[in-house]
């Protein structure tokens, strides 16, 4: 049972201060047992540390109250009935030490103290159980969020061909926001749970393509990412001056970028080379006066979700 293992781990991981009730309700030795009964009722608690100023002098519980009730002596004070010099638990100890203390001493609660011995909280076995359950719930929820991935999206959508399409506007010369579209594409792919190498290749190709639009196009360009179970396609289109000689542009080191672009760390003539290196397929078109159109395909093999396309159809027809 993996849950049990995780629970055992948590007992060694979580610290007392993480599950204790901080700033507990306290009483003084002068408090009468009748008042103590009211305090328990009002706060719905089962015991309280006894404080004399800043000093912890004892602990009193509902068991002490019941005994006092049975004896019919409700006028006595907490000071007369409390357990003196109580055993404390340091706040930075792990839960396992608190568990051992409960086992060894059989008490229902322990005052929790900081390194100077000052009272900071109170811990019961109920606090430990609640703290563990809460942490397990949080971890379960995080796991659930992590697993909400493209495969599930693709699984949920019944179609012959499912595709998530992302559109991003890229403004030429907008160096302040350069890389933002690629950053967003990368984040989406990560959220969808794409394999890290696929994310990395697409991010680099997208970033170089985005920089090309920003550096060379004179107008707004667009990047479109199409995410499918077996491939991601990236298109980058602009209506800029285009590329005079594509073959030359593909040569490593060839660049037409201006000096100030180079000062930004770009325009080294490696952009298209990098894109090609990241791509499984790459096409680059630049008809005279027709802008520049780049298309990059990165295949995902094995697909994120193979039970799609025709496979899905077959399964459905056989099931129906």
């Amino acid at each position, binding site marked *: 049972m993996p849950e049990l293992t995780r629970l055992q781990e948590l007992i060694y991981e979580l610290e007392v201060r993480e599950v204790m009730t901080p700033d507990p309700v306290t009483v003084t030795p002068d408090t009468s047992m009748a008042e103590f009964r009211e305090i328990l009722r009002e706060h719905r608690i089962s015991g309280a540390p006894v404080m004399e100023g800043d000093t912890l002098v004892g602990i009193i519980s509902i068991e002490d109250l019941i005994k006092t009730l049975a004896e019919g002596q409700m006028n006595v004070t907490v000071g007369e009935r409390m357990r003196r010099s109580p055993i404390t638990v340091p706040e930075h100890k792990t839960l396992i030490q608190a568990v051992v203390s409960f086992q060894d001493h059989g008490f229902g609660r322990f005052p929790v103290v900081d390194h100077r011995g000052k009272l900071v909280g109170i811990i019961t076995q109920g606090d430990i159980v609640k703290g563990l359950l809460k942490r397990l719930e949080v971890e379960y929820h995080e796991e659930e969020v992590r697993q909400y991935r493209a495969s599930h999206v693709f699984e949920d959508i019944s179609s012959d061909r499912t595709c998530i399409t992302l559109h991003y506007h890229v403004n030429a010369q907008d*160096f*302040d926001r*350069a*890389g933002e579209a*690629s*950053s967003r594409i*990368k984040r989406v792919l990560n959220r969808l749970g794409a394999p*890290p*190498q696929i994310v*990395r*290749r697409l*991010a*680099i190709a*997208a*970033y*170089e393509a985005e920089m090309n639009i920003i550096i060379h196009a004179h107008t707004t360009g667009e990047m479109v990412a199409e995410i499918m179970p077996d491939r991601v396609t990236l298109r980058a289109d602009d209506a800029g001056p285009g590329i005079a000689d594509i073959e030359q542009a593909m040569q490593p080191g060839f660049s037409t970028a201006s000096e100030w672009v180079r000062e*930004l*760390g*770009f325009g*080294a*003539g*490696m*952009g298209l*080379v*990098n894109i090609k*290196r*990241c791509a499984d397929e790459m096409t680059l078109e630049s008809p005279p006066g027709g802008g520049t159109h780049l298309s990059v395909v990165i295949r995902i093999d094995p697909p994120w979700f193979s039970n799609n396309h025709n496979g899905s159809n077959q399964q459905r027809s056989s099931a129906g």
Partner: protein
Amino acid sequence: MKLADVIEVLEGKVISQEADPNLEVTCVSAADLMSDVLAFAEGGSILLTGLCNPQVVRTAEMADIIAIVFVRGKIPPSETVELAAKKGIPLIATKYTMFEMAGRLYEAGLRSCDISCRIT
């Protein structure tokens, strides 16, 4: 090697809000041309650079670079620091030149990112 060791070897100063000293550094890339970095930097590497503009952070983000070290006492402008904070990428300043930094890290046992293995 841990990021903490790199900072010690380079007598570096963390200039971003935070840097996890336990990050594992696998290899090093040193360049001022961002396309070069994108071409050969591996995930898990650190980048040594003299370039201070926000594109350095973007490049690191795309290439899964875990920390950026600036040479010769350069302090990047606030846009760069802010973007790095947003992306959770630590920035480190050192007084050393690129050559000196590379030499110190090599001596400490780190190696260049493997150009032959490239992006894929």
